[in-house]
């Protein structure tokens, strides 16, 4: 039984993960998933339209689900379906609440008062839940339709805020800039495939195809001052203008390079490809295919829609096979959402691990270990997938550093747990794995997380060495800190920290700090060498460099203080918790200064989170400094424990 239950848990976990890899059933007869797999070049990378849909939704409204609080069913089944509505049926998509606005001043600007945005639930149960924050109490997301009357005001305010340096903008200015950016982004999507104002773009294009030769001749005749068909010239000019608007209003390059073009990056916006018709006399097949899809979607013709996607795929498939393989894989990766499964599993592992300290230590402890291991393998798969898609080492930006810090720390936890089998590894893994993935989720709100690397960072060698090693140093320092937290909280709040566990924790923390010192030092040094190679100085006192240096010094302080006998077990733990403060500052705080060569990952709201985290660590250190007589694990009565209270305290104080 003791062996069986953990194995059953393992099997259930594996099943849960396997389920996410299964293809999702279509909600209607339209093959929306196949549409999401079509390739597009945005921000320098060929990706599936599905990625565009998901990263757009995250950027516009902070989540991938499109819904309103009053209706339990989502408005669209998948992000790809939302994108279909935006590009092909904007009059419907414009009513979806997809613009998130939280700033009260900005809400006032668009004429929303507290009363307007309060959600009035019919059911009493929902009313009660909303008071406690389990269901939303206010509308936070608004549709384009609601915003349209205020576009001019928003634009004016954005123009006022634009010249101000990003770092010194007020929250209102930031909110306005973000909303304005989101509106622009939405416009870009709308102009990506077809001309948004036209109800029958396919019909217009077919007519255009028939007339283009005569039309061009008529325009030439007009320019030469000869007799011409004025109506035809007017039609040509009018449709030409709509192509120009399309070409200039989007950054989605949906038309792949022509068959005779060897440059794999020569993608074009649909509008630009359509403009070429005036020269070639033939409407571009990709643009025509998308117009056909628009027609089928608008007129509810699933067979034509599905057939057209199949034909288009087959046509570009001949030329773009290797790229399409990656695009397809990325689509499946998006749907599987491995990091969300992993996050859920870490949370479960954390609770199972915590309970194992109270009862059924063996069964729950092993179960927690298996769940952690599966979660870690899922995260490993996700990171490996990202590396393959990007063709890069794992850490390329702040988002992927969060993934990697969590991955590295959990990897160490798995090793610790395999050695000590006391669920401490699983609990630490649960906390760190869950929180780093949560951080990653918040960082993903700024758009596609697989960005192109700016010139100086475009070096796989240094990304694979300096960045990886320094990030592994972060992982280890955090892990030591969380083990310290477990020591303090278990010791003070519970009676479960016996001296064997305390000694084991001490050895873990000491070992991990040695590891952290090595990695943060070597990583910092490698960074210095990179800087010497690319900027001409080994060390420039740049904030990010200083942050890394502070981590190294802090770890050195802990080791020297321990070797010199200045700290014992408890001091080691408290200093290790201090490492959390130092590392979080180095990881995020330095980016918030808005100076220096490294500040490429800047986020505002993160400041509040960082301050909160630092404060919480200080509180825990203060708790850790309480006299041992207040620690529940060390103040046992002689009756409850053979150890004398003083002796217990002394044995702890003198360390191992």
């Amino acid at each position, binding site marked *: 039984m003791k062996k069986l239950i953990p194995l059953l848990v393992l099997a259930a976990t594996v099943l849960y993960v396997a389920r996410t890899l299964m293809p999702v059933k279509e909600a209607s007869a339209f093959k929306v998933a196949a549409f999401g797999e079509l390739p597009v*070049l*945005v*921000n*320098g*990378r060929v990706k599936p339209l599905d990625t565009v849909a998901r990263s757009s939704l995250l950027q516009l409204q902070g989540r991938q689900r499109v819904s309103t609080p009053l209706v339990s069913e989502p408005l669209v089944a998948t992000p790809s379906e939302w994108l279909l509505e935006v590009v092909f049926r904007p009059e419907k998509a414009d009513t979806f609440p997809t613009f998130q606005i939280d700033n009260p001043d900005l809400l006032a600007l668009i004429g929303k008062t507290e009363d307007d945005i309060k959600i009035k639930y019919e059911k009493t149960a929902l009313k009660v839940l909303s008071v406690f924050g389990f269901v939303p109490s206010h509308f936070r997301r608004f549709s384009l339709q609601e915003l349209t009357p205020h576009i001019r005001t928003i634009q004016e305010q954005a123009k006022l805020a634009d010249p101000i340096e990003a770092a010194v903008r007020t929250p209102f200015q930031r909110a306005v800039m973000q909303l304005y950016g989101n509106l622009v982004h939405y416009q870009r999507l709308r102009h990506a495939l077809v001309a948004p104002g036209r109800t029958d773009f396919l019909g217009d294009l077919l007519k255009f195809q028939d007339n283009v030769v005569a039309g061009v001749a008529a325009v030439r005749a007009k320019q030469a001052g000869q007799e011409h068909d004025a109506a035809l010239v007017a039609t040509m000019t009018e449709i030409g203008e709509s192509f120009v608007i399309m070409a200039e209003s989007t*950054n989605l*390059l949906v038309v792949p390079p022509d068959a005779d073009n060897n440059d794999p*990056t*020569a*993608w074009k916006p649909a509008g630009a490809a359509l403009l070429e018709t005036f020269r070639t006399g033939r409407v571009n097949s990709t643009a025509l295919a998308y117009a056909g899809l628009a027609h089928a979607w608008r007129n509810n013709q699933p067979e034509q829609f599905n057939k057209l996607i199949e034909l288009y795929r087959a046509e570009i498939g001949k030329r773009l096979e290797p790229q399409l393989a990656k695009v397809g894989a990325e689509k499946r990766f998006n749907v599987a959402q491995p990091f969300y499964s992993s996050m859920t599993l870490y949370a479960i592992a954390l609770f199972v691990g915590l309970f194992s300290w109270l009862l059924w230590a063996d069964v729950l402890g092993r179960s927690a270990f298996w769940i952690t291991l599966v979660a870690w393998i899922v995260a490993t798969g996700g990171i490996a997938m990202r590396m393959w898609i990007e063709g890069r080492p794992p850490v390329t930006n702040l988002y992927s550093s969060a993934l990697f810090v969590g991955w590295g720390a959990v990897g160490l936890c798995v090793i610790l747990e395999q*050695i000590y089998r006391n669920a401490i590894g699983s609990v630490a893994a649960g906390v760190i794995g869950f929180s780093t993935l949560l951080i990653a989720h918040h960082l993903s709100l700024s758009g596609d997380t697989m*960005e*192109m690397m*700016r*010139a*100086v960072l*475009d*070096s796989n060698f*240094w990304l694979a060495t300096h960045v990886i090693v320094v990030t592994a140093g972060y992982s280890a320092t955090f892990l030591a800190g969380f083990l310290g937290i477990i020591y303090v909280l278990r010791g003070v709040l519970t009676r479960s920290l016996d001296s064997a566990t305390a000694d084991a924790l001490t*050895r873990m923390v000491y*070992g991990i700090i*040695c590891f952290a*010192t*090595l990695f943060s*030092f*070597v990583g910092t*040094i490698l960074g*210095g*060498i*990179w800087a*010497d*190679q*690319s*900027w*001409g*100085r*080994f*060390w*420039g*006192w*740049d*904030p990010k460099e*200083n*942050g890394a*240096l*502070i981590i190294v*010094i*802090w770890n*050195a*302080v802990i080791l*020297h*203080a321990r*070797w*010199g006998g*200045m700290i014992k077990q408890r001091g080691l733990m408290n200093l290790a918790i201090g490492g959390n403060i130092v590392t979080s500052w180095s990881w995020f705080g*330095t980016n918030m*200064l*808005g*100076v*220096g060569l490294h500040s490429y990952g800047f986020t505002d709201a993160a400041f509040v989170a960082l301050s909160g985290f630092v404060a919480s660590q200080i509180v825990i250190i203060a708790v850790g400094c309480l006299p041992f007589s207040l620690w529940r694990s060390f103040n046992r009565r002689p009756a409850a424990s053979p150890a004398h209270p003083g002796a217990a305290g002394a044995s702890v104080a003198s360390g191992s």
Partner: protein
Amino acid sequence: MPELIRQFRDFFVSLRLTVVLLVLGMVLVFAATLDQVNLGIWAVQEKYFRSFFVLWRFGDVPVPVFPGGYFIGGLLLINLVASHLYRFKLTFRKSGIFLTHIGLILLLLGELFTGVLQEDYSMRLEQNVPKNYSESFRENELVVIDVTDPKFDDVVSVPEERVAHTDAIQHPKLPFRIVTKEYYPNSALQARPETEAPGTPPSKATQGFGQRVRLTPLPITYKQNERNIPAAYVELIGSAGSLGTWLVSADPRLPNQRFEHAGRTYEIAMRFLRTYKPFELTLLKFSHDRYAGTEIPKNFSSNIRLKTPDGQDDREVLIYMNNPLRYSGLTFYQASFEPGNDKVTILQVVRNPSWLVPYIACTLMTLGLVIQFGIHLVAFVGKRRAPRALPA
């Protein structure tokens, strides 16, 4: 050993001192990082790291408030060397620690040398225009050039600091004195309108373009991507009286101002401090690659011709991101470009004779740490194996 000396020794070899210094160093680095927002990276280095004490000004009185980089680094160095001399034992168990600290000593010394010896300049190259000098990032000079002989220029250079102090400058090569009438550490120039508003004071310059230009003093900037443009009104006074007052400014768009005196032709200008090289560089082509459909830069590269007057070297080199040119003790990096002008490249030129020291130091330290923690790990694994060997 007398008690006093022993106490003295114990103080300098103690681990407690190490820990205190490390903590002080950490606080210093942290404070310096925060202060970069106000002071910029260069001023912070001078104030916090290349000083013995961090000074705060109360009114005009500088008060030391915290030990500076030299103080902490110096003491740490003494502490390190002293404790190693005192405790040194050549055993395998100690070899990791020993290597790590030798590396650290080297690293600290290397940083000191770099601080003292490193010079860096910028070099702006226009396509097909050979150049044999680089310009300082921060320092400027006032030059008076005798251009009478078309074959060569005779340059007299006055450092900006000398110009800033208003005393007269006399140089044996010049038949006049240079007197600074006014000096502005940072300024902007703009053309005076044709018809001036009544009551506007006339320009203080009586010669050159300064008469048609209005000078606006600006506060000194510490921003990393901006530089100060100093300007000054200087009067040249010959044996027979004043030659006139010129406005000089380091604004690179301004030409040299030419004048005649005593049958010779001179030019006067303020410019970024130049350092001449025994070779010349010519930009053949600058490339700025972007990712398709974006403005995200993918790569910058400069194809450059390197030529020495003696003809020993005449070759093409390609400088690009993460791939500098090392030549004659200098290193040339692709540093910047001028937006919208593909015919110009901006290189950073660094002379750092001690650039190899950190590489050696780091190798030693990494090796040391690996050995040290490797010993720990082996011991730990050994200890865990032992009880398991007993029958359960």
